[in-house]
């Protein structure tokens, strides 16, 4: 038991010590772990394959240089397929119906505090300003 605990603590330390690539997105579990360990804002992105507005976000907005930079600095993105079993459970839990949806959380004493939510596609400029607003509301450096 003690050994297992050590391994667990060890792996958590490793997570915080190693370089995490915040330019990409992670499954929900991994992303929330990174948000906790690195004190980042968790952005849960619900998408679906069939939705043209998600495609628009993926092609033009989430890949935009300024948007990517903002996300890379302060956020960690959880990529959730809203049609998957995990995605359905998470969207019910987070009351995120429809795609694209973005729900923001900040780690707070072992739990999560919702910091904002967005539904629907938007332009690059608008999405960027909303990210900055959420970042500023949460506080800290590097909100752009």
């Amino acid at each position, binding site marked *: 038991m003690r050994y297992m605990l050590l391994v667990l603590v060890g792996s958590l330390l490793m997570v915080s010590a190693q370089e995490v690539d915040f330019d990409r997105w992670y499954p929900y579990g991994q992303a929330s772990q990174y948000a906790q360990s690195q004190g980042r804002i968790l952005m849960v992105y619900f998408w*679906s394959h*069939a*939705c*043209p*507005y*998600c*495609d*628009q976000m993926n*092609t*033009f907005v989430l890949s*935009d240089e300024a948007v990517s930079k903002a996300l890379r600095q302060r956020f960690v993105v959880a990529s959730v397929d809203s049609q998957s079993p995990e995605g359905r459970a998470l969207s019910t839990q987070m009351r995120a*119906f*429809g*795609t*694209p*949806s973005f729900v923001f959380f900040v780690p707070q004493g072992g739990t999560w505090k919702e910091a904002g939510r967005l*539904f*629907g*596609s*938007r*332009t*690059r400029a608008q999405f960027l300003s909303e990210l900055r607003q959420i970042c500023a509301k949460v506080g800290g450096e590097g909100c752009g």
Partner: protein
Amino acid sequence: MDRRTFLKASAGAVAGSMLANQLTSALAQGGLEGEDIANLEKGLQQVLGKSFKDLTPSQQVKLVAPTIAESGANVPVEIEASLPADQVKAIHCFSDKNANPLLFTVVLNGVLPYYATRVRVAETAPVRAVVETKDGKFLMASQSVRVTVGGCG
């Protein structure tokens, strides 16, 4: 009306009211909705070595594109010039707000001055059809394509 279109319609209404301000300011300046000459200029210089002011708006160029597109990923455009085929060298197409404003270039050599394709438009902005003539003129038709913002239910 199914659920998806309903959500889209309501999202559209919200977006519509948000866009209203931007639209009014665009109209006040006399420009097309989403116009971004500074960004367009990059593409024009790179591809044609020309500036926006070197392009001549012309009725001889007909550009057919939707005024509203559900997705910017697949916007049909059709360009036709009412000029003799042997006077047209090439057709170029740009969109003001794309990171890379050039959408395509097509060089014509024996076909009629017509071209149709489907393009990607990053966000609400004018699409510019530029017909290059053999005697070095650049004739232009512009039309704004509004890329709707919204979501799926």
